């Protein structure tokens, strides 16, 4: 019988690819309720480790569970419980479930921003770091998720440094600023109206501020969130219901909401331009689906650019960007392989066998050495020496083996296996001692370089 740890990494969640914003925002877990949610998650039977990732584009639960199907069910229950108005049935069509390699690969892709609405944006990495910190504080993660999440962070960093994927997101917002400079020569006196809180739009808003824009107005469906954002950008919040009337005061309108319909019509823009006495307006629609009616293109002195236009502008500057995403995907595959090997090493049976083999090897070598020196021993005497060696070795490892077998199903099982491997320097198939320490030092250097303030503010 194969004695292996009953531990499976699973992810259950939904993202901008599977769920509309109405569902996402209902499920989103505010920072203030994170600890309660984590406690609740870990209280489910069979959930050994858990971490929650909640951003405006995704809500995901990563967990280590005893049993896959049961684990899926409990996490789904957990998600549905989080919001009373959502039943498990309503939720199901929007959810995805992955386990094992696919779950790890999913996390790596998310961290590397390959699954983001805007591939290459950097905020998601910060959000994962935040989620991890919260989980560490609540001790909701254990040896497996700690390792996997740390690895995800290092993979994301590798992807950012070794591919040009990050440049893509940056250049899209850069392209927006560059276009704005062809409409307005001096951005410092211009006003930016940020509609919605899409990550890309916020990135663009930050670029505008860096380029001299001093007046920022923010409007979001959730007034509280709008105020927070306005604070962050040193601007003012505008009630969502009023932003169309307020649009005339904005020279640059950045729209990025999850709305599935047009928020800004041709008439709205026509009216605004008229109120502005024909001063040009620059409208950037980064939403997918689009939030500004494309017919706005026909309005004189209004310049509308959607995400494709911006991307085309970026592509024009530099081609061959898809290759970068492909490179990144390959990196994810490689890194998942490394983690898989480490996870396999955590299984009890191979560990016990490795321990056995190692002990036998030591015994054999020592016995041979000793017997070589005692040439004139009789056969029974030789057997006696060998028996003594076997007995010492067996007694030394006996407790370890018993403990490993006993702890196989405890929540610390993996830790015992890892410890045993280290104590007896059994290594692991992936050589994770080397990789692991590299990851650790990476994490440490991150913690040293990331200011706490910047790491905060979860994104919804």
């Amino acid at each position, binding site marked *: 019988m194969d004695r292996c740890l009953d531990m499976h990494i699973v992810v259950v969640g939904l993202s901008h690819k599977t769920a509309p914003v109405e569902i996402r925002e209902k499920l989103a877990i505010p920072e203030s309720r994170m600890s309660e949610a984590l406690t609740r998650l870990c209280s489910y039977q069979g959930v050994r480790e858990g971490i929650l990732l909640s951003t405006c584009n995704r809500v995901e639960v990563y967990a280590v569970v005893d049993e896959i199907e049961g684990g899926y069910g409990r996490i789904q229950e957990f998600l549905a419980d989080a919001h009373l108005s959502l039943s498990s049935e309503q939720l199901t069509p929007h959810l995805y479930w992955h386990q094992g390699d696919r779950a790890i690969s999913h996390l790596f892709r998310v961290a590397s921003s390959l699954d983001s609405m805007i591939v290459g944006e950097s905020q998601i990495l910060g959000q994962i770091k935040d989620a991890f910190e919260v989980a560490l504080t609540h001790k909701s993660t254990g040896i497996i998720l700690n390792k996997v999440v740390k690895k995800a962070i290092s993979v994301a960093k590798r992807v950012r440094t070794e591919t040009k994927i990050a440049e893509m997101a940056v250049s899209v917002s850069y392209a927006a600023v560059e276009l704005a400079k*062809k409409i307005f*020569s001096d951005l410092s006196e211009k006003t930016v109206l940020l509609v919605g809180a899409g990550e890309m739009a916020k990135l663009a808003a930050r670029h505008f501020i860096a380029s001299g824009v001093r007046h920022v107005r923010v409007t979001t469906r959730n007034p509280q969130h709008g105020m927070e954002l306005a604070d962050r950008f040193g601007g003012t919040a505008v009630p969502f219901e009023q932003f169309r009337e307020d649009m005339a005061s904005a020279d640059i309108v950045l729209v990025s909401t999850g709305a599935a319909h047009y928020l800004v019509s041709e008439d709205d823009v026509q009216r605004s331009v*008229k109120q502005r006495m024909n*001063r040009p307006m620059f409208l950037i629609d980064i939403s997918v689906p689009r939030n500004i009616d494309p017919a706005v293109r026909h309005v004189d002195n209004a310049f509308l650019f959607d995400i494709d*236009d911006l991307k*085309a502008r970026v592509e024009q500057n530099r081609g061959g960007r898809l290759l970068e995403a492909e490179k990144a995907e390959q990196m994810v595959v490689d890194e998942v392989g490394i983690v898989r090997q480490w996870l396999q090493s955590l299984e009890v049976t191979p560990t016990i066998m490795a321990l056995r083999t190692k002990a036998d090897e030591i015994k054999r070598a020592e016995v041979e050495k000793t017997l070589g020196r005692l040439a004139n021993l009789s056969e029974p005497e030789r057997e006696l020496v060998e028996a003594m060696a076997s007995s010492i070795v067996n007694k030394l490892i006996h407790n370890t083996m018993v403990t490993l077998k006993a702890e196989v199903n405890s929540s610390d099982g993996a830790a015992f296996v890892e410890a045993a491997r280290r104590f007896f320097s059994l290594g692991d198939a992936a050589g994770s001692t080397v990789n692991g320490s590299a990851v650790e030092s990476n994490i440490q250097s991150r913690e040293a370089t990331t200011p706490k303030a910047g790491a905060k503010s979860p994104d919804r």
Partner: protein
Amino acid sequence: MAAMFFMVTMALYFAATVSFLAYLLWPSEALSKASLGMTAFGFAAHTIALVARMVGTADVSPPGFHEALSFFSWMLILVFLAVEFRHRLHVLGSFIVPLALVSLVSAAALPETAPTLSPVFRTLWVHVTLSMLGTVGFAVAFVAGVMYLIQDGLLKSKRFNVLYSKLPALDFLDHLNQQSIVMGFPLLTLGIITGALSAEFSRGSYLSWNPEQTWALVTWVFYFAVLLGRLTVGWRAKRAAYLTIIGFAGVILTLIGVVLKGHGPVS
């Protein structure tokens, strides 16, 4: 000497025009530097030609079309160099230098001294100079308008070509358009007043409703409306660009009409 420098000026402006037009198509810094250099040397040669002529003729003959157009060309380049010096806006040269060249070539095609119509030379000088300065303002507004419409079209159609990258921001062009008219309009007003005065001296009536005078007044009313419209009902941006192009076309047509009819100096 004046004639020789005049020819040198024309040659340099011609070369600069070719070079500046090429600059529109190719992203080359060397091209813009060469164009600017030729323009600057041409301007120097032109200045010498104008001074030499003034000294040579001892300022007795009244200014005719030749002088007026030559002066117009000189002023245009002066304004361009001033804007270029301040804003490093090479591409403006691609529009203004050809205009200055056309004006200079037209000047060359016309006889150097106009028939004397009036003994009141001094008033006439002032009148012609002011009117021409006003026209220079409208010419720059026209160029800004053309550039505005091109940039507007490129942005709307999302054609990000070499020209797009060289043309300045829309609001800069709109501002240049406005400033040019703000400067040009009072000068034209003064030009019209001095013109009326000189007409009174020479013909005994301020206003004789001859075609030039009528058109001058129409022009004045038109630009007044353009300015007023900008301030009150938002005739700016694209509309201002169209209006200034139409306005300047009117000014040019008037000039051509006056020249062809063989009337006296612009009045």
